[in-house]
């Protein structure tokens, strides 16, 4: 799939409906550290911390991007519904700690820009791309800007107060960044291997290529017992891949002839091809294709 029309001249953006929360008060990193799968204690102001919250059965409740400010953290969920995470954050606050959880959904807009030439945007706002490397965020006026670098693309995540929507969209237009349709966005993210909530929800982190967000040496967090057991017993058996099939299909599960199953997580259709992100047994990851009992042949593409 040629993505150049989407990635050039500058990029595409989408306004993501992901839930946004603000945690404020002294000791917020210690509080978060007891809940998330990674070690956030010791992180510095202006850092971005990527992490996961799991159920106690080890399955993913949500993936978080945490922007660290002074005695404050802005938490961007992968899910559109933040009430379960907020409830967990509030219930776990010790009675003698002054930590507040704020619902930011109606106050902050989150823009996600994907492109191959996003320095154009950064030049416009006067930020050198080097300043955003190493998981750091920068401010521009009232915006918070961060960068993720992929193989052939870059992602800018931009948080803006809701009343500044028109000014950021004016800058986007000036930089030839156009708003994507939902269909185009799904196509682009599946082709680039950018995982969404649908791809990871209720999965074991190891099955959806989020191993790097599981730190088994940080102490207890919900789900840690399960993760430690899977890891120590070598039971990390599945992985997330991109799958291409010529046959049109709407099913979510397929049986592989040689054993095991395919679980389709998200899909788009293009020119009689169905392209998906799906979980397969890890042993097939390096194969060219797999055949299913349902008579569908899937081409396998390993994700970075």
């Amino acid at each position, binding site marked *: 799939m040629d993505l150049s029309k989407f990635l050039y001249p500058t990029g595409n953006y989408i306004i993501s409906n992901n839930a946004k*929360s*603000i945690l*404020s008060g002294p000791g917020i990193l210690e*509080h978060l550290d*007891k*809940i998330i799968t990674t070690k956030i204690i010791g992180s510095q102001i202006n850092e971005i911390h990527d992490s996961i919250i799991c159920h*106690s059965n080890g399955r993913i409740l949500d993936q978080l991007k945490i922007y660290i*400010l002074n005695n*404050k953290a*802005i938490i961007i969920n992968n899910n559109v519904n933040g*009430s379960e995470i*907020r*409830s*967990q*954050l*509030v*219930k*776990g*606050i*010790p*009675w003698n700690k002054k930590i*507040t*959880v*704020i*619902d*930011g959904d*109606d*106050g*902050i807009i989150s823009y996600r820009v994907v492109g191959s030439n996003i320095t154009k945007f950064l030049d416009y706002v006067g930020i050198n791309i080097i300043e955003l490397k190493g998981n750091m965020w920068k*401010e521009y006026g*009232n*915006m*918070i800007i961060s960068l993720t670098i992929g193989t052939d693309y870059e992602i800018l995540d931009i*948080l*803006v*107060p*809701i*009343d*500044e929507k028109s000014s950021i969209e004016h800058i986007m237009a000036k930089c030839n960044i156009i708003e994507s349709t939902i269909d185009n966005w799904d196509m682009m993210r599946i082709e680039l291997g950018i995982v969404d909530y649908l791809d990871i929800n209720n999965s074991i982190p190891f099955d959806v290529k989020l191993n790097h967000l599981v730190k088994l040496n940080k102490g*207890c*967090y*919900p*789900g*840690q*017992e399960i993760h430690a057991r899977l890891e120590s017993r070598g039971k990390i058996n599945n992985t997330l891949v991109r799958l291409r099939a010529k046959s049109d299909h709407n099913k979510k599960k397929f049986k592989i002839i040689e054993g095991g199953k395919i679980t389709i997580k998200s899909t788009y259709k293009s020119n009689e091809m169905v392209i998906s992100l799906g979980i397969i047994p890890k042993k097939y990851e390096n194969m060219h294709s797999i055949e299913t009992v349902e008579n569908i042949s899937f081409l396998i593409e390993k994700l970075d």
Partner: protein
Amino acid sequence: MGLLDGSGFSLPVFEEVEIVNVKINVTDSAIDAMKKSMQDDYDTHVLVISAEAGGCSGYLYDMKITENPNDKDFQRIDVDGIGILIHNKDSSLLNGIELDYKDTLMGGGFQIKNPTAERECGCGQSFG
């Protein structure tokens, strides 16, 4: 700076915590152990039982003997002259617990049994 210092817009504080009238059960051995720990401070001190984030199942129990905080957000349960406080925000998590004391060298001390916990981790410290 709207996003950075929170000014420029006001956003709702999330406080979705269910408050229930707490009932707890305290065994005789736990009462004796509390009396020993508190010595003659019954009038000025209380036992605060609380829940906070942590552990493999989501929440950890905590118990502290402390000066009475005289805070209206606590519910007070009097047991044989000893004041036990549970904060309103922990009331739904701790309602119905049984506080026990085991006088054994291995795994001894105060123990909490929580009939409303959906799960507990192996060490018994964490519940959810």
